[in-house]
């Protein structure tokens, strides 16, 4: 009995945390989503969400999140593969991870300097004769900076799953006649799928609700659901609409988590 009591006691912080910071906020978000801007109970927000304005915004959010995830994956996978083959792989990995410790806003401001009209990039373009370009406030700069920010989160899980791969399996594939490319396609990639999935998860979901970068780097040319929520809460004070968008964002996050849910196979 005492054992059970102490176990329940240990559960208290966990339960408190879940209730206060997970269940209560979700409940509040859902609750607020049923009130219009005057504070009357209605479904107007949900109707509004299915108008072209918000659907387009949803689509562009997903599109940019997809782009960011895809590009991060394309860069991160070969990088992780290369890292596992280096001599001091943990050191190299650390060097890649360190920038992710720095606040996102600081990095965003740094890029303002780098990509700005009188920034380093433009000076360089001038020197090589291409001339200054509008880099900041474009789709390109938004995706570039986002990818830069998310890459460490993509590399880490892929690196870990590559690192755990039994090297004899590669010998075995080689022994059975597989070239390097076939070994990669039939053995390495399928066996590191879990890492790829969790990498995509930790990039796609936050990318879906990015909002500061859209203003700082993309100059509000890219309007995502994250931006819309921020605007509704802070500018138009339409908490109901903001909550409604958040509800859809939460639902899509759960869906993504289910789709990319890791099913561990093998020994």
């Amino acid at each position, binding site marked *: 009995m005492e054992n059970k009591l102490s176990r329940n006691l240990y559960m208290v912080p966990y339960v408190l945390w879940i209730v206060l910071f997970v269940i209560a906020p979700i409940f509040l978000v859902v609750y607020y989503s049923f009130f219009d801007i005057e504070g009357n109970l209605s479904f107007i927000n949900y109707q509004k969400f299915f108008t072209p304005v918000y659907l387009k915004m949803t689509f562009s959010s997903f599109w940019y999140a997809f782009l960011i995830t895809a590009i991060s994956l394309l860069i991160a996978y070969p990088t992780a593969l290369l890292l596992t083959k280096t001599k001091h792989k943990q050191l190299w990995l650390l060097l890649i991870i360190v920038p992710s410790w720095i606040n996102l806003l600081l990095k965003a401001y740094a890029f303002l300097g780098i990509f700005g009209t009188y920034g380093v990039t433009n000076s360089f373009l001038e020197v090589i004769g291409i001339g200054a370009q509008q880099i900041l406030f474009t789709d390109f700069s938004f995706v570039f900076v986002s990818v830069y920010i998310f890459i460490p989160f993509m590399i880490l899980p892929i690196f870990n799953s590559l690192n755990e791969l039994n090297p004899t399996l590669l010998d075995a594939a080689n022994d*059975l006649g597989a070239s390097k490319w076939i070994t990669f396609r039939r053995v390495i990639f399928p066996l590191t799928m879990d890492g790829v999935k969790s990498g995509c998860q930790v990039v796609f979901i936050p990318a879906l609700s990015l909002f500061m970068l859209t203003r700082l780097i993309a100059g509000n040319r890219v309007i995502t659901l994250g931006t819309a929520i921020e605007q509704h809460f802070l500018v138009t004070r339409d908490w109901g609409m903001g909550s409604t968008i958040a509800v859809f964002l939460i639902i899509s996050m759960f869906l993504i988590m289910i789709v990319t849910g890791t099913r561990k*196979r093998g*020994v």
Partner: protein
Amino acid sequence: MTNGVIIQFNNVTKQYDNDPPVLKDVSFEIERGKFYTLLGPSGCGKTTILRLIAGFTEASEGEIFFNEKKINDIPANKRQVNTVFQDYALFPHLNVFENVAFGLRIKKLKNAEIEQKVREALSFVNLKGYETREIREMSGGQRQRVAIARAIVNEPEVILLDEPLSALDLKLRTEMQYELRELQRRLGITFIFVTHDQEEALAMSDEIFVIDKGKIQQSGTPTDIYDEPINRFVADFIGESNIVKGRMIADYRVEFVGKEFECVDQGLNENEPVEIVIRPEDMVITTLEHGKLQVRVDSQLFRGVHYEICCYDKDENEWLVHSTKKANVGDKIGLYFDAEAIHVMRHGETEEEFDRRLEAYTDVEPDGK
């Protein structure tokens, strides 16, 4: 190079960076259709030989021939050999069928052909009906069989087995020894088996290479190696041995533990210091006066098949005796052995010199050992 030779090593050395070489100037030939065992303690270089044949690593010096073609620079995926790995190295994301079919799919065979070959290979290793099982659902012994099926399905000319039985329990291991030997006979292809277990090597092989410190110490049939070990290492590693220092007095006369004995060795120098090996099972317990050696029984273990009796003579030399008869601890007994039981080893003798010496005996006494 005769027609029967499938693999040949010519003065092969393998060295990593500036470490001492793992293999030193190794040369040997492997004949088609035989069961070979590379036997030695861990770190002796036996797995390195296997990896050189498979192509996972390159020789630092020397030449490796396969079917009379030099294969030093041929990558592993282009070689006509398949490996059964120590940890089996089965692909955890593929089921049994796909694991076995892996090599065939790479060769781009037709589906029907793959299906037929995989089924055949699986029934060869008694795994019919396991096609759709996941690897994690298989026991150690079953995984072992999948690994073997995956190798034989490609119909290689040589199969390399890297300590494949070491992870199995004793009973299963003995069973698999029979099965592997049987499988090799039925397939008629060359097996090269790596192990550190001398019993396994003696039971399964046509030919054993005993390896130590990156050199082949002795090669030959199991009986050759057991009965005529070339040096102290081989005598000690293969089976149990009583090894004492001795001195050759003249042909057929040898002296050890302060006594003179009749033996069957000749052609050595007079007074040459030698080492004497007598196998424990060649010693017979007898009365004190009939014994060639007089010893005191120190301890006794029951091993099932026989008693392992540990005795000491008056100079405190240890003598191990295997006997079906029980002895009494503390008793003084006599040990008798034939002249043939005494095996004389010269110091620093090479394999060629050793073989020549043994052949000389056969010339002298045609029906001798």
